């Protein structure tokens, strides 16, 4: 399969379809509109369902219904629209339904602007909706990775019966890079996917004699029973934390005097800056969480070699990931932060300047 030059928004849509997604519900918003447009064009060609819902709230509840029916379903939006979806996301997490939500982040708070930002980190990784729950959150940094994360996200959602968010940003949505797609799921594989949830989901009753009463529900008025349910959720989350943290190391070695931590597209700017400072004989490493929940605490802890004087966090927000980095660093070295806000994207030159102050 040869490479295709494609926008991130289109690549994730194509990859989702290849991963067996045949139901997609969303509402237009910049900078993710190419995604909904691609789905509008392609879903009818694969006998899939595309609905432009009346609102993000309606879209996520359509997802709830389809996910409760055991089918691979996806929605997407950008920051303000994701806030609207948070009601439904909490219900989906509570009812333990598998689905994929793509957030192509833009600057906030409020209506904000439409430029790339990472301001939804807290919302995605610490909650966002009401109650005790977790999303699995994947954070791509290239168009190829964005596309690859589609099947990864659906597999994780199915495996753990949990909503999975792909936390991208406007830069990744809008930029084009070469992308190579995995082969589309075969009919046999799609059939297998369709059958995996039949024991609990809404589906026709094949055994007419046996009563069939599957409840898709997040309501439980007995606090003792609800507490047990939430504890069970957290057992599942502990399992996810044990198995599913992913990260990339870049130039990490015992020589590092500075260890950077950055995620998503911001990490690529940091890599360019590292390349530049390395030319000046300085040693800087980078840890990039590929998934921001579960968070790769151990990886960061282990990457702090004997020469590291400082851990430097760079984000396109006010420093929302710093708390997680500090948990990982355990106070062993200072943790510093620099970032840009409101949809302003830092440049390699700016990051290089910051890094040079560390030596």
């Amino acid at each position, binding site marked *: 399969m040869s490479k295709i*030059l494609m926008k991130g928004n289109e690549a994730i849509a194509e990859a989702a379809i290849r991963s067996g997604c045949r139901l997609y519900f969303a509402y237009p918003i910049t*900078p993710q509109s190419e995604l909904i447009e691609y789905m509008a064009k392609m879903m009818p060609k694969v006998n899939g369902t595309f609905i432009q819902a009346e609102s993000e709230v309606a879209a996520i509840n359509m997802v709830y219904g389809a996910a409760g029916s055991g089918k691979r379903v996806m929605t997407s939006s950008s920051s303000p629209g994701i806030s609207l979806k948070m009601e439904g996301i909490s219900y989906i997490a509570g009812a333990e339904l598998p689905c994929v939500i793509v957030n192509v982040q833009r600057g906030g708070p409020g209506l904000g602007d439409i430029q790339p930002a990472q301001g939804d980190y807290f919302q995605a990784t610490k909650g966002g909706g009401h109650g005790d729950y977790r999303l699995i959150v994947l954070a791509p940094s290239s168009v190829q990775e964005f596309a690859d994360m589609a099947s990864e996200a659906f597999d994780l959602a199915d495996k753990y019966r949990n909503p999975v968010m792909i936390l991208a940003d406007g830069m990744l949505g809008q*930029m084009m890079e070469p992308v190579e797609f995995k082969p589309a799921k075969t009919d046999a594989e799609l059939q297998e996917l369709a059958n995996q949830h039949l024991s609990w989901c809404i589906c026709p009753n094949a055994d007419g004699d046996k009563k069939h009463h599957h409840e898709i529900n997040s309501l439980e008025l007995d606090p003792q029973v609800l507490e047990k349910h939430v504890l069970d959720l957290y057992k599942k989350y502990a399992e996810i934390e044990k198995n599913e943290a992913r990260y990339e190391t870049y130039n990490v070695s015992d020589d590092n005097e500075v260890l950077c931590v950055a995620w998503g597209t911001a990490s690529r700017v940091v890599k360019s800056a590292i390349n530049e400072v390395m030319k000046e004989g300085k040693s800087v490493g980078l840890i990039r969480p590929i998934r921001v929940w579960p968070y790769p605490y151990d990886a960061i802890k282990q990457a702090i070699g004997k020469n590291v004087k400082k851990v430097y966090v760079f984000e396109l927000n006010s420093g929302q990931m710093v708390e997680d980095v500090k948990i990982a660093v355990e106070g062993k070295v200072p943790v510093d932060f620099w970032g840009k806000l409101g949809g302003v994207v830092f440049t390699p030159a700016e990051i290089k300047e910051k890094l040079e102050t560390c030596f």
Partner: protein
Amino acid sequence: MTTEMICAGFGGQGVLTIGKFIAQAAMQEGKNVSWLPSYGPEMRGGTANVSTVVSTEPIASPIVSFPDVLVALNQPSIDKFAHSIRPGGVLIYNTNMCPRGCQREDIIQIAVPMNEIASEIGSMIVLNMLATGIIIGKTNIIKYETLEGNLTSFLKEKNPDLLAKNLAAIQRGIEIGKQYA
């Protein structure tokens, strides 16, 4: 080997397409590429720009701080980006739309009356392909044949006349670019 390029101009001049054709051809020739457009309201009537990176190495930042090549189709693009061109880098600009030009002497300036040449070829639409040809002539960043193949498969059925004009514009651009190579 990495070439970082910014193409800028008014929305509608086709600057995004310059970057796209170069990125696509470079990809087909086995290079790593990224194409990052400015987007939003400024695309409609205002200025548009696109950062394109072509490299033999994996591309870290798709954001270009110091371009090796700046293509400026109007004066605001020079005003905004020319100062950031790497010393020794290239500025390709349209003299018909850039009355003040650029004062830097540590870069190679390729000043071309692009509107006039495009009119000669027969359509203002081909102005961006003229600029693309200049880039190729100066830098050899992609092969003419790759671009010709892509344009042909894109336009042959839809608009053979426009295809011929585009190819003429690219060839004319390459001739101009070669004078500075």
